[in-house]
């Protein structure tokens, strides 16, 4: 018994792990099934009550590929040529002619457009500095500059797309860089193409908007609060959560803290009841004039702000804008910031000519320097002069990236923005400032969308065929190899369970070909068992004892099992590298399947047989 305790522990541990990772998938299915069965009012209440459960289950469930859940996949590529054209100054006929020729060449060549452009200039004997940067720059310098800009453009494009997709509110969007010039965007559940196009293309809008005064803001927030408190009694859909992490400035702890307010101490629920808005949008002394909203409460607050009665309380010249990113505060919780800004922008982004993130040598702090064109500088001087000590929000596509305070009047258009907590934050601001001025022109080079009905059909046929395949295999193995076969069937169940568990654990994506991969794995995993059992039969026929036959079977069959599965694994790896989307899903399940099935076939069945033989001393029936 002792010699296989270790193995049994591993197997049981693996089983529990698999179940643990698969639990969210079941929970997600269960929750959605329940919601579908409720009436629309009940379901809204249910959703609000179980919001965090729902979100967690969704986040940790097995990821379904777009071909199974429906949605859109778009591949964007930076139009380097357009970018290069936009960066040029003094564009004359000669320049246009050169661009025309380069555009033609780009169609047939795989080389970088910047390189082609350079060659064109050089073949005509014209210096690139005539149209780019300063007259003194050499062609090398300018080439490097243009190349650099095209690389940076992709980062700008990504940030713009990410910002817009975040605001659009797609669940589980995926935005990734591919190579140096492409962005892959996957939007599950989105099928309306027109919206997606506006989401992904078009110049980003950069605006500078003044923040409203803190006391004015607080008064408006108070009115909202009172309004909500008054209607909370009749409004059951306002299931409110409470956030106490920032309440007590010194020690932040869990739900038992009493909240001290000007009206005296009260408990969490009382506070939420009396001040429904303030309990979600926290106005703290630390950050005057803005409100902090916890990650999980953002949706609630957004809904509140969209209500007609709340809108009437907010003055016409003001709006609430969300921060683009969250802040980490309190006990490791993430918070969005809600900024009260003037609706009309003071300045729009076309005026920013350059921005750069760097470390200020004097204070060793990250700063962003910003330059503007002539008319921009003029306006900027006026605006900063009239608003000293006030804050100006830097807004890209309606999301606030920063809201620094105006220290003094800025003439000459050369500003320095401070207050970022890290160089990364500064770099992000640099990208944002440039995004408004210098767009990252992108082309859609690939676009695939799958409607939800096809996705459902695929899931259904996938599950059906999997179950039928498993059923047939189990029956056959049981009949042909008797007891041995039934043990192999057990191993097969483990294989499928572990395969799905690993997929869930590593957040791999399951696609329709992926399901085909699982089915194929069934067939392949049977092979290992067949090799072993046939061997055992041979050894037994040759006269070995049951114990010895089993030992011999396993050891002699091992090389064949190893060799054959390794080559299939190799092709799986190669396929994963070269494939995209659904095909990668297939390679993934195949690879995981092979590894897992080897474990089941060799380790699990072995342990079972060892126990059987040792316990009973009899031969195991291998048919």
């Amino acid at each position, binding site marked *: 018994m002792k010699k296989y305790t270790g193995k049994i522990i591993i197997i049981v541990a693996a089983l529990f792990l698999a179940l643990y990772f698969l639990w969210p998938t079941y929970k997600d299915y269960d929750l959605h099934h329940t919601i579908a069965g409720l009436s629309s009012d009940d379901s809204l209440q249910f959703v609000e009550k179980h919001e965090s459960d729902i979100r967690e289950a969704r986040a940790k469930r097995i990821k379904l590929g777009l071909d199974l859940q429906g949605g859109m996949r778009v591949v964007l590529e930076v139009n380097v040529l357009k970018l290069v054209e936009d960066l040029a100054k003094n564009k004359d006929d000669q320049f246009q002619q050169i661009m025309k020729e380069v555009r033609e060449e780009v169609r047939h060549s795989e080389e970088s457009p910047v390189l082609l452009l350079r060659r064109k200039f050089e073949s005509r004997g014209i210096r690139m500095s005539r149209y780019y940067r300063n007259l003194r720059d050499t062609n090398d310098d300018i080439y490097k500059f243009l190349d650099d800009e095209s690389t940076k453009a992709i980062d700008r494009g990504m940030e713009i797309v990410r910002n817009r997709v975040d605001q659009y509110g797609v669940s589980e969007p995926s935005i990734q860089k591919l190579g140096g010039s492409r962005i892959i965007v996957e939007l599950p559940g989105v099928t309306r*193409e*027109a919206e997606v*196009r506006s989401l992904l293309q078009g110049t980003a809008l950069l605006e500078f908007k003044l923040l409203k005064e803190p006391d004015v803001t607080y008064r408006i927030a108070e009115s909202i609060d009172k309004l909500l408190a008054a209607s909370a009694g009749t409004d059951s859909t306002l299931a409110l959560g409470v956030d106490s992490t920032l309440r007590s400035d010194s020690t932040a702890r869990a739900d038992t803290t009493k909240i001290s307010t000007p009206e005296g101490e009260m408990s969490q629920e009382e506070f939420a009841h009396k001040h429904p808005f303030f309990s979600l949008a926290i106005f703290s002394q630390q950050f005057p004039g803005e409100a902090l909203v916890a990650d999980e409460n953002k949706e609630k607050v957004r809904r509140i702000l969209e209500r007609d009665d709340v809108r009437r309380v907010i003055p016409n010249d003001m709006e609430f804008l969300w921060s683009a990113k969250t802040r980490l505060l309190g006990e490791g919780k993430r918070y969005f910031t809600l900024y009260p800004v003037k609706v009309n922008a003071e300045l729009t982004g076309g005026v920013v000519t350059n921005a750069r993130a760097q470390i200020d040598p004097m204070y060793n702090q990250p700063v962003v320097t910003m330059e503007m064109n002539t008319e921009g500088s003029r306006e900027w001087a006026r605006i900063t002069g009239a608003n000293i000590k006030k804050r100006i929000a830097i807004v890209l596509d309606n999301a606030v990236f920063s809201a620094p305070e105006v220290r003094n009047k800025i003439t000459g258009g050369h500003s320095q923005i401070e207050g970022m907590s890290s160089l990364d934050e500064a770099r992000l601001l640099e990208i944002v400032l440039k995004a408004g001025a210098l767009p990252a022109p992108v*082309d*859609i*080079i*690939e*676009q*695939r*969308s*799958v*409607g939800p*009905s*096809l996705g459902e059909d695929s899931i*259904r*046929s*996938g599950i059906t*065929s999997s179950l*039928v*395949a498993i059923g*047939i*295999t189990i029956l*056959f193995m049981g009949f*042909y190899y008797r007891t041995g076969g039934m043990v192999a069937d057990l191993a097969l169940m483990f294989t499928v369970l572990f395969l799905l568990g690993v997929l869930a654990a590593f957040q791999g994506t399951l696609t*329709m*070909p992926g*399901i*085909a991969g699982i*089915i*194929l794995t*069934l*067939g*392949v995993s*049977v*092979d290992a068992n*067949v090799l072993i059992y*046939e061997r055992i039969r*041979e050894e037994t026929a040759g006269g070995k004892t049951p114990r010895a036959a089993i030992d011999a079977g396993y050891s*002699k069959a091992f*090389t*064949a099992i190893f*060799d*054959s*599965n*390794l*080559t*299939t694994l*190799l*092709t799986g790896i*190669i*396929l994963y*590298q*070269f*494939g995209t989307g*659904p*095909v990668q899903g*297939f*390679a993934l399940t*195949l690879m995981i399947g092979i590894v897992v099935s080897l474990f089941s076939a060799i380790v699990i069945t072995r342990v079972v047989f060892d126990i059987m033989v040792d316990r009973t001393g009899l031969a195991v029936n291998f*048919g």
Partner: protein
Amino acid sequence: MRIFGKTNIDFMGKRYIWYAVSGTVIGLGMLSLLLKGVNYGIDFLGGTEIVVQFRSDVDIGEVRSAMDKTGFTKAEIKTFGSDRNILIRTPEQGEGSIIADRIRGGLSAEFPTNPFIVQKEDKIGPKIGAELRRDAIYAVLASLVAILLYLGFRFKFLWAAGAVAALFHDVLLTLGLVSIFDGVIPHLNLEFNQTMVAAFLTLVGLSNNDTVVIFDRIRENQKLFRSMDLVSLINKSVNETLSRTIITSGTVFVVLAVLLFFGGEVTRGFAFASLVGICTGTYSSIYIASALVVEVVVRTKSKGKLID
């Protein structure tokens, strides 16, 4: 339970017949490929593709005339799983969803009483198509190289060569059969797309699986029966592993058949190709891989070649 007792079939003796069979089928397949050309899917060609599901069955001829009227004369039209699911592919791409919109408009005009929903809509730029084509070729080549290296490591050169020859045989045979059956069986879509390439790579892996198992047995028998001649040795090894071969290949076959019939449209082509592949894979391990070694040995009159 047993299907095969101790068998003693003279596999190698009958090999010439099987060379002829292989040769003929591959020949026919290549001819079909030449005449019909390769039926590339949108993955590799680029263009716009849209799959719609009508409420009731439609006649393909009417869809074609609808497309001609809309100006898509080069459109390819086929059914997608049933007579009310139609796949329309055309090489034009256009800006945004202009092409797809026009296709939809054309269909609405032609079938005012038969509404449809869009199940799938793809638009692939030419650059991407070329890249996917290139990547697919690289993938296949890389697999063959990887397997060759691995086999060369585990077995002596001649045997490794035999195994790789079997793989080439399988790929060519399956390619040919896919070409022959393309468009012949209704609702069976055998176009060449990424999933089909995955099927080919898979069958390469599976075929190799089978070959390696037989070679492994040959290796073991060579150590035990040093004086046996090569043909008898191979026959013996194949007979001994016959049970396993039939059962494993049979299981994979059944499982793939389930996928073919119950698995939905997207993976049908994959299932078909893999099905053909598992058959040729099993067969080629005996009649191509091992047979090749036999031919070489017989021709060079050497005593016998060690596998390891």
